[in-house]
């Protein structure tokens, strides 16, 4: 079976090396990197902006480009964090802690160099894991019926919403809100319109691009306007500054390996966001370090570990997305949406039905990571300059790109109304300190959750116990319950520490799970 995988991988390299595919992959990495460096713009925004472009493309280059944007923007985020102390992308917040002090000591170049090495190393490990783990996972996945799919989706949604930033309860609320947004449009089973407000344009449901542009683009601008000035000044940076010394490499290398392991483990679990992964990697580095007190003053381990974990997680994240059709986070949900738009249903059959996409994607990861390294060596000076573009020019230009981009998805102005509405909703929710990413997760999975839920209960003649009695499904539901208990317990302990009174949250948690299962 491993021989088969290697053979398929060879085929994948053939696909990825085709001229046009290579070009799109390069384009994706470049643009992703460019957007990722900008403050407030991460992979989500980059992919949202370029998603309309993929509609006219062949599926293979489309997905290669999106993947390129994804890891390109991730690397770009690290650049902003290290040079500017600006976590343009939440997972890199941790990189700021030691990366920016290194810049202040004049070692910003070294930090970037180490980031580059650890991300390349971690991504390579992630790719190897992906090559060998995916076919195994697929064999299990073929045993999945609607019952199992519903249960694992519940687990994915729950994990995605409870483990992301902020309060777990709010995350779950946002996921449910996203599921509700997915209901809008024509019901596939009965053909009746739901939540369409008598607007014929809504009969096909809400537009994924419009929602993500509204929630992550316009909402961000609404909250940030007149709050953000120019990003700052870091001076110049030369290529020779980027080479770490032998001693620094010796310190960074073990951290890199630990970070990679953390990222790989978390990547295999659907729903664990990249932010939590980098924070855990950082915490681990501090724990194993002989001088934990020195962290935060420019420790190279504090940069290498989290960055390695972020990149190996990025790669491994593609496994559940591609082979089970269950995205780990909002970015993966967007990529999943792009595949669906192309008429490709991710799932266990993807590897056999579209080997060119699956193996081409894996091969392009490697090529893309090489491109990333090659690109960033000469471009580092450009990134530094780009960070000086003032916000007051940035956001009006971005508004135009959003409007035109969304228009081009269906050549209709109606989608822009959706952007406006979701922009306002997003700004409102964010100012109430909700994190809006789970909305996207719920929105993309919503129709599939409903479909499988209805099908499972149709098959079992309305018997709810089927979700618990079938072994695979029961395992997932059990994990859901464990997760809820864990979250409830930590919330309870947290609230006990803060105030001695009213432990409402834990008593509330079990009913929440009962409703989730029993609705």
């Amino acid at each position, binding site marked *: 079976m491993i021989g088969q995988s290697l053979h398929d991988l060879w085929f994948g390299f053939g696909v990825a090396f085709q001229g046009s595919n290579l070009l799109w992959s390069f384009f994706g990495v470049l643009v992703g990197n460019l957007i990722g460096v900008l403050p407030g713009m991460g992979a989500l925004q980059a992919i949202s902006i370029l998603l309309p472009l993929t509609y006219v493309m062949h599926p293979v280059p489309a997905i290669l480009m999106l993947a390129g944007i994804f890891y390109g923007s991730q690397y770009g985020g690290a650049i902003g964090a290290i040079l500017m102390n600006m976590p343009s992308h939440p997972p890199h917040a941790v990189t700021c802690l030691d990366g920016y002090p290194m810049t202040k000591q004049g070692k910003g170049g070294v930090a970037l160099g180490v980031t580059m090495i650890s991300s390349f190393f971690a991504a390579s490990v992630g790719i190897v894991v992906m090559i060998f783990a995916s076919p195994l996972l697929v064999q299990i996945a073929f045993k999945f019926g609607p019952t199992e799919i519903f249960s694992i989706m519940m687990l994915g949604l729950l994990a995605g919403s409870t483990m992301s930033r902020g309060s777990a309860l709010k995350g779950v609320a946002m996921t449910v809100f996203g599921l509700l947004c997915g209901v809008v449009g024509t019901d596939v089973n009965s053909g009746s319109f739901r939540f369409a407000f008598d607007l014929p344009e809504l009969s096909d449901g809400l537009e994924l691009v419009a929602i993500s542009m509204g929630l992550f683009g316009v909402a961000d601008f609404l909250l940030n306007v007149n709050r953000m*000035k120019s990003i700052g000044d870091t001076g110049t940076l030369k290529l020779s500054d980027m080479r770490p010394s032998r001693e620094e490499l010796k310190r960074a290398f073990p951290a890199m390996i630990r970070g990679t392991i953390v990222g790989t483990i978390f990547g295999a679990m659907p729903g664990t966001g990249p932010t939590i992964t980098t924070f855990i990697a950082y915490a681990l580095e501090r724990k194993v370090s002989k001088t934990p007190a020195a962290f935060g003053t420019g420790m190279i381990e504090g940069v290498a570990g989290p960055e390695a974990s972020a990149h190996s997680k990025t790669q491994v994240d593609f496994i559940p997305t591609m082979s089970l059709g269950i995205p780990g986070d909002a970015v993966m949900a967007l990529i999943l949406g792009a595949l669906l738009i192309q008429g490709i249903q991710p799932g266990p059959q993807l590897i056999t039905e579209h080997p060119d996409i699956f193996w081409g994607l894996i091969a392009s990861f490697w090529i893309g990571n090489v491109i990333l390294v090659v690109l960033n060596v000469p471009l580092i000076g450009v990134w530094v300059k780009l960070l000086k573009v003032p916000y007051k020019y940035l956001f009006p230009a971005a508004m135009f790109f959003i409007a035109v981009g969304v228009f081009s998805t269906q050549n209709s102005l109606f989608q822009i109304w959706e952007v406006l509405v979701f922009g306002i909703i997003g700004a409102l929710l964010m100012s109430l300190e909700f994190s809006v990413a789970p909305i996207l997760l719920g929105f993309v999975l919503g129709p599939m959750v409903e479909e499988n839920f209805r099908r499972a209960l149709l098959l079992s003649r309305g018997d709810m116990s089927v979700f618990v009695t079938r072994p695979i499904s029961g395992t997932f539901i059990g994990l859901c319950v464990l997760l809820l208990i864990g979250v409830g317990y930590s919330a309870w302990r947290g609230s006990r520490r803060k105030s001695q009174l009213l432990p409402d949250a834990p008593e509330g948690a079990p009913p929440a799970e009962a409703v989730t299962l029993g609705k």
Partner: protein
Amino acid sequence: MQHSTGGGAASQASRAPSTFKKDYYGGALMVIVGLAAAYAGYGYRVGELAHMGPGFFPVALGLLLAFIGLLMVISARGQQPAPEAAVSHGHPSGLPDLRGCVCIVLGILSFLLLGEYGGLLPATFAIVFISALGDRDNTLREALLLALAMMVIAVVVFWWALSLQLPLFQWGG
């Protein structure tokens, strides 16, 4: 911004009372949205477990959302919220800037209006110019130049290279 996290956490803690309210109103909002969705879903056929109608899933989700909202309200009343990482996308909390928001919304509305009745170029100019005016640091001249630059991009990239299905000029839809 010398000690970004330390300073952030401290300022967050001092803002605890406002967070307290935020959870309360956020929860209340979820209750309202959930109940409204459940009510609307009830209008479609709900059906039974073995044969669900189109209304079943929305009603279930709406009730679940309302329930979660209720839990939020209850827990917001009882406990001081943890000073959690407020770096959601890195923007500061508090009320957003009114002039900026109004200009951004007006910019989008004018793009919609002019896209329908004027064509791509007027719409491009409107959205960039109006939203640029939302920033208090932009002068009229800067906004004008930025809008003109974007019009060039609109013509070259979107109209010519990507052949966007929106004429450059059109009169009255």
